[in-house]
């Protein structure tokens, strides 16, 4: 039994690796994923105004997927959640599933507000040029 078991109620602790190889491997994986994210970010920058909606949104989704992969490595290896028993993993992961609906519903709603404003409640065709946001008050900057 590992020396860090702190309570008699705990009958098992993951065996801790004797070396630091796994930690450094994870560091290089996280760094590589960040570099790929940055490369895609610069790609978006250089193609700004050139690309249509579909390649832009695909690249952004790819960056978001890489971010989720980074989150997996941080939680699973650095926070050792992957070494815990299944009960423990599920009690953390299952509630976070709410985010799937949370993100989809709210972004959908934001987009719907935009369409309603641009079309004055669907009463006229969209004219995005007219829809400047309210500018700041002159006094606000002081």
């Amino acid at each position: 039994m590992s020396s860090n078991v702190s309570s008699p109620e705990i009958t098992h602790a993951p065996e801790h690796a004797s070396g630091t190889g796994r930690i450094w491997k994870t560091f290089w994986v996280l760094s590589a994923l960040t570099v790929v994210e940055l490369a895609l970010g610069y790609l978006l920058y250089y193609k700004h105004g050139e690309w249509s909606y579909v390649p832009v949104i695909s690249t952004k989704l790819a960056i978001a997927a890489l971010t989720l992969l980074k989150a997996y490595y941080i939680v699973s290896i650095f926070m050792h959640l992957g070494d815990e028993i299944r009960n423990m993993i599920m009690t953390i992961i299952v509630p976070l599933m709410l985010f799937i609906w949370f993100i989809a519903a709210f972004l959908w709603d934001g987009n719907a507000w935009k369409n309603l404003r641009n079309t004055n409640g669907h009463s006229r065709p969209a004219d995005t040029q007219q829809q400047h946001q309210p500018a700041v008050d002159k006094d606000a900057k002081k």
Partner: protein
Amino acid sequence: MSTTAIPTNTKWWNGGRSPFNISYGKVMMWYFLMSDAFTFGAFLISYGTIRFSVNHWADPNHVFNAFPLAGHANLPLAFVSLMTFILIFSSVTMVLAVHEGHKMNRKGVEKYMILTILGGLAFLSCQAWEWTHLLTGEHIALLSDGTIAPLATTVKSNPWGAELPHAEMLAALQKTPHDQLVKIAATLHGAGDAHNLSTLSDADLMNKITASGLHVTNSGPIAFGGYFFGITGFHGFHVFSGVIINLVMLIKTRLKHFDQRGHYEMIEKAGLYWHFVDLVWVFVFLCFYLV
């Protein structure tokens, strides 16, 4: 890992053992972090909703393109990448401290805790510079009263709207009062200082400004500053409290409290918090800087 050590018919919920086979303190740290994840998630989703609801949002490659001591060089993503690598690296030193704790190596824990604290302080310094740069750096934008003035990025003002067409910019300049024209002219290269400029006539100032090929933008949604400073500030506050927690852990390690206790589990709990701070930054980096 050694999950095979658990008999298949273990009755986890019959009492006398931890159902999750980890200590109460660690379970509660995980539940706190889960609730914190929902707080950050709600902030970021609210930001996303507002961003989706407007036609033009600030382009991060224009807003975050500065680097300390690099002057006006256009370096999008560079500084925030540095901040990201600082935080990833401090996560590695934290997990190495936990690793030394498992081996009951007090000197090793001390060394890696110091490195982690330094990483946290480096990150906070970077954020302080970034905030100062945004709050004090002014860009020429159209105000709601139809005039043009230098505008900083604050919770009340956002100069990062869509570019103003040239004809509209000329019309707005006609309406702009003398003191604002002086301020705009003072931002131009080689235009002289505000005192000398204030003696010029409005027409001369306008000529100087239009001849400089100045880019003027609409002001953008005010929500940008509130979300940016609110969310990065809330994250920065987590980094700050993480540094304090790590300092306490370093002191307790030096006082040999964990050696007396027989285990270094407190370092693991502080580590969970610190990795969570890194985890949140991964998503802040995505939402504010990359997309």
